[in-house]
């Protein structure tokens, strides 16, 4: 769990509950607390400020409408919100049919996952666990997971980037997910 969720977890839960009860002021606070991280998530996938702004806007309208669907079963509030934003950003990419002009691949997520520039103990610990488990994967299957999550790569894009047949990429992802689960839960 990311540090934000660990530190503000109970506060975000309360804000989610109130948002579900149509308390608009709490919804605004929820936005203020989570938008910077969620905007970063949309920007990382879309690399285009305007598109990322649109995705953030549509995501929060959906969050307002669907807040009553949320419960702890769905993960931490931050993970739930991030999934909504990531899926909408990925949908926006699919609608565009291509990545926005000037889109440059970057290994930032990859590099940071390993290096961890933030020194907060919780975050180090959290990244440490996922990082350690990712490290146990072969390099390409591991990159497939990170590129898919961080940048919204499709199977086809992963296949081009990692220079592997589509079928191989798909089985890398499945095997990696299975091994990650065993490693993180074990």
């Amino acid at each position, binding site marked *: *769990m*990311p*540090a934000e*969720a660990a530190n503000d977890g109970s506060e975000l839960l309360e804000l989610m509950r109130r948002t579900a009860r*149509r308390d*608009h002021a709490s919804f*605004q606070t929820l*936005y203020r607390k989570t*938008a*910077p*991280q969620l*905007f*970063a*998530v949309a*920007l*990382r996938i879309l690399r285009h400020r305007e598109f*990322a*702004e649109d995705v*953030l*806007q549509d995501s*929060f*309208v959906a969050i*307002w*409408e669907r807040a009553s669907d949320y419960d*702890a*079963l*769905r*993960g*931490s509030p*931050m*993970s*739930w919100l*991030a*999934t909504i934003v990531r*899926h909408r950003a*990925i*949908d926006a990419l699919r609608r565009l049919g291509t990545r926005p002009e000037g889109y440059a691949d970057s290994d*930032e*997520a990859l590099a*940071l*996952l390993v290096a*961890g520039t933030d020194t907060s103990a919780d975050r180090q610990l*959290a*990244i440490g*666990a*996922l990082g350690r488990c990712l490290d146990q994967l072969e390099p390409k299957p591991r990159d497939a*997971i*990170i590129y*898919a*999550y*961080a940048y*919204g*790569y*499709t199977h086809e894009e992963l296949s081009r980037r990692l220079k592997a047949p589509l079928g191989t990429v798909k089985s890398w*992802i*499945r095997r990696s*997910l*299975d091994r*990650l*689960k065993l490693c993180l839960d074990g």
Partner: protein
Amino acid sequence: MNYANPKLRSILAGEYVLGTMPSRTRARFVRLMRYDADLVRLVGDWADRLSTIDATSKRTEPPTRVWSAIDFRTRPRRTKNMWRLWAPLGWGAIGAAAAVALVFLLFRPQPAPVPVAAAPSHPTVVAVLSDSYGAPGWIVTFNRPHASFDVAALRNLSLDDKHSFELWVIEDDNPLKLGVIANKRDEIVAIPASEVPKAGLVFAVSLEPAGGAPGNGPSGPVVYRGPILQD
């Protein structure tokens, strides 16, 4: 696909969170989640496991216009009687500009001109309905062959299931009920038009209990309006 195999269920939940599922597969997976709480939990677990990666991105403050737009689209409307707001039309500069842009968009010169012999049956834009901020919500076209007003929502207008939007036409301060209209983008409701639209009349949309106003006049606030642009 075998959704009963526990290992496969977890892997599919992981693929759902990753975002690698093709759109159609994802839609099917979302439908399955509605009746399968365990699948929901598996998805939640994966979201928690992988969201660690999000902590590596630098937090970025979005511009204030993003919240303004969200606020506008979600803010609950007051339900006091707003009859007095009928009178001044108060078309904001933005509303007028949006209307002009829309009309331009719809009346762009056609690449292939319609033969003169053919009856000019394409619909005519008669009004753009905007809120008090000038944001357009619906466009009304007059469909002459069908003698109807076709009311199309220009975007998704959030509404709980206890309320409906209802359209009225106002002449000399007297509202005439036209009926409930759609609130989902691109949904069109055709309303029989008893007469050809006249410039000077005004369309208004009020917020009503689900199904429409109980009486002959609006019972809720007027949230959108727009004058008929031409005869």
